[in-house]
């Protein structure tokens, strides 16, 4: 494996800007969680209370880990943060290995490297070594963050080691997947699907009898029980699987050509289907994937929020500090909770809407809009096609959230009437969501270069107002500047029609103004 060391040094140089951020992210997760948990549940009674509430709540267990971890405060930290830190570590490994193996082959850079005095297996070995170094660094940083915030040293060492061993599994998995697929996208997609499956399996296992958790690399990590028994042997499972996958990757590599995969990429259609006939159809075709992703994400979020709806009343009574986030205080806790969650969904839907409107700008700057606008498609028709995705798509993701929340909550209280009710509740926030998108259309029309920055600042502003206006006592005018302030807070308050009508009229006016700007300006600048 000639040239591994110089190549590894080169890879480290290529990663010097992004790798520190991944490591910082993992460290901060552990640091913040450890400090916060010790603040909230530092006493034996608080921890005992937590065990009682959470032990009975399947939704929290599904999001976190096995309840056996709750034996000590350190275990509580692992319980809350391990699965999320694992996701970050897995993605870090996926990109570290993927970028320097399949992505380099697809772009042709690998050909240049391999033409030098570099062995066939060297790029793969260097990429795996790079990921290994990153995992060791992540493990050490997690150990330092946990031990540094006062958690026991032995458990902290196991915590870091478990996360590092988990990272190695995903590095090796990515290496093997990179041999199978010819396209980088298919490789990343497959690894991400494995990560999703790993999370789902451990969620199902932890809620059930724990068997399924043993099918998940995240489960192997959590079942070392740091601070709650300190079992070292599950690390061997991770290391064995990583070695196996790594060997498989090397074996597959020696049986294929540079640039080729084991699975040929799926070819597209030779002719367009009858559906792909105008600019609007094109916009939907390009954005249906993103819409499905957002809708699925909000559906899951809805299910997560809805499943703890019934116990929220009890939860708030036991954690009075939560009550300050609920606008109605503790009088009408459930409806206040539903209003707050719908508000969160509206924020996410607004972010989706903004990203969708900004796709128009991306089409423009890439030159693809020019291809369409040089045909019989007018600017009005083109913009309408783009905006139809934003307008309908935001409604779809809100309804998906409402359906998820209604389904999960309805099942816990045996009332499936909650499904249409909460879907309707979510839709009440649609005009506010549209308004954020309409502001984006306005800046897209008149200040195209600044559109993305301005639009995301608006979203961030709305988020700050929605989440912190009450707790930080922000002045009234600053709240009124947020479109969501004017959305009636159903189901806590009654549905008021007048503000919704005003919002919709405002949306129409802003979109019309944005179009007027687009009609007057140069395309592509």
């Amino acid at each position: 494996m000639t040239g591994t060391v110089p190549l590894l040094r080169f890879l480290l140089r290529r990663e010097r800007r992004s790798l520190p951020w991944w490591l910082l992210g993992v460290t901060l997760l552990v640091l913040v969680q450890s400090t916060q948990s010790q603040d909230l549940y530092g006493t034996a009674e608080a921890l005992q209370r937590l065990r009682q509430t959470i032990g009975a709540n399947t939704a929290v267990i599904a999001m976190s880990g096995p309840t056996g971890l709750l034996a000590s405060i350190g275990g509580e930290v692992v319980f809350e943060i391990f699965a999320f830190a694992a996701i970050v570590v897995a993605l870090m490994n996926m990109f570290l290995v993927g970028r320097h193996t399949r992505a380099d082959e697809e772009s042709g850079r690998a050909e240049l490297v391999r033409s030098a005095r570099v062995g066939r297996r060297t790029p793969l070995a260097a990429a795996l070594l790079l990921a290994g170094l990153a995992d060791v660094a992540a493990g050490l940083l997690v150990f330092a963050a946990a031990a540094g915030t006062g958690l026991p040293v032995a458990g902290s060492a196991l915590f870091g080691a478990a996360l590092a061993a988990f990272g190695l599994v995903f590095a090796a998995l990515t290496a093997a997947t990179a041999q199978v697929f010819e396209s980088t996208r298919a490789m990343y997609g497959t690894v991400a699907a494995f990560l999703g499956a790993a999370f789902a399996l451990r969620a199902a296992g932890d809620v059930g009898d724990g068997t399924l958790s043993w099918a998940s690399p995240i489960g192997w990590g959590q079942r070392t029980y740091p601070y709650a028994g300190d079992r070292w042997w599950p690390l061997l499972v991770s290391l064995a699987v990583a070695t196996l996958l790594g060997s498989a990757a090397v074996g597959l590599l020696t049986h294929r050509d540079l640039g080729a995969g084991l699975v040929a990429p799926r070819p597209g259609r030779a002719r367009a289907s009858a559906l792909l006939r105008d600019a609007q159809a094109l916009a939907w075709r390009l954005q249906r994937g993103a819409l499905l992703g957002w809708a699925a994400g909000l559906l899951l979020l809805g299910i997560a929020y809805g499943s703890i709806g019934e116990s929220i009343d009890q939860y708030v009574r036991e954690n009075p500090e939560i009550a300050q986030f609920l606008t109605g205080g503790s009088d009408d806790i459930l409806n206040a909770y539903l209003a707050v969650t719908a508000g969160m969904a509206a924020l996410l839907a607004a972010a989706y809407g903004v990203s969708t409107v900004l796709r128009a700008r991306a089409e423009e700057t890439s030159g693809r809009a020019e291809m369409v606008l040089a045909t019989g498609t007018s600017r009005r028709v083109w913009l309408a096609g783009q905006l139809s995705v934003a307008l309908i798509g935001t409604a779809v993701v809100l309804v998906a959230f409402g359906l998820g929340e209604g389904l999960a909550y309805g099942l816990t209280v045996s009332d499936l009437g909650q499904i249409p009710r909460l879907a309707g509740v979510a839709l009440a926030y649609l005009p506010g969501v549209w308004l954020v998108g309409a502001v984006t259309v306005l800046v897209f029309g008149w200040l195209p270069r600044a559109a993305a920055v301005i639009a995301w600042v608006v979203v961030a502003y709305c988020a700050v107002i929605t989440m912190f206006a009450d707790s930080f006592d922000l002045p009234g005018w600053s709240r009124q500047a947020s479109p969501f302030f004017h959305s009636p807070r159903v189901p806590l308050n009654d549905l008021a029609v007048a503000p919704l009508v005003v919002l919709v009229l405002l949306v129409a006016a802003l979109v019309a103004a944005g179009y007027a700007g687009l009609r007057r300006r140069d395309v592509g600048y």
Partner: protein
Amino acid sequence: MSRESAIAITGLHKSFGATRALDGLDLTVARGEVHGFLGPNGSGKTTAIRVVLGLLRADAGEVRLLGGDPWRDADQLHRRLAYVPGDVTLWPGISGGEVIDLLGRLRGGINRQRRDELLEQFDLDPRKKARTYSKGNRQKVALIAALASDAELLLLDEPTSGLDPLMESAFQRCIQDVKRQGRTVLLSSHILAEVEALGDRVSIIRLGRTVESGTLSELRHLTRTSIAVETTRPVTDIARLPGVHDVVAADHHARFDVDTAQLDAVIRELAPLGVRTMTSSPPTLEELFLRHYGEAPS
């Protein structure tokens, strides 16, 4: 109206901030002709085409496209033309065949038989996703979509810059077919030979301004041919002939440039000397600019 020029531009100005892209451009493209639009990179060709398409708004000057106002009536006029950008970007997840059909439908119909013939001629796999196409293949997608349409005007911005020589000759055959059908082509290029091979008339643009315009024979004075010759008897006084420049002669070898108009006379002079080998090469745009405008195009 039908006799009006396909494109008529007079005194067109367009600036982007402090950058002056077009500075009094004139361009007239008659119906049914292949018009070469020649200029070095950065001279304003693409900007001019974008103004003609109504994608950019003219700061000053008059622009008529197919008898209409390209800014006001863009979508109506676009139904009658097909455009191939110089740098073709496509939608990564959509196959080449789908893009061709989509662009055809957006232009109001596509000739399916011609589409399939063109795919064959240009040797393009329509099932590949656009993200896997090279620059040349992306260009082929846009070219096939344009050539398969029945548009009366084709606007082609450096259409062969990514094509290999084999495909370039396929392209030239296609443009000759288009010409026979009586359609109009505006062909921008920075390669003189390409425009010479296809163009009826040529406009040369430099720094956003038209510097020459006319038929190819009118512009003959601009072109010189470089000749290298080996003869049995020594080449002596070739330099005294009119139209011969930059002679380097030694015994039986000579290299020189000759004005295209004087080519015939020079060949007659050489023939009695017993020509053993002779190579001639057309002048490049770079040489032309150096000679006529005293500077190399950037």
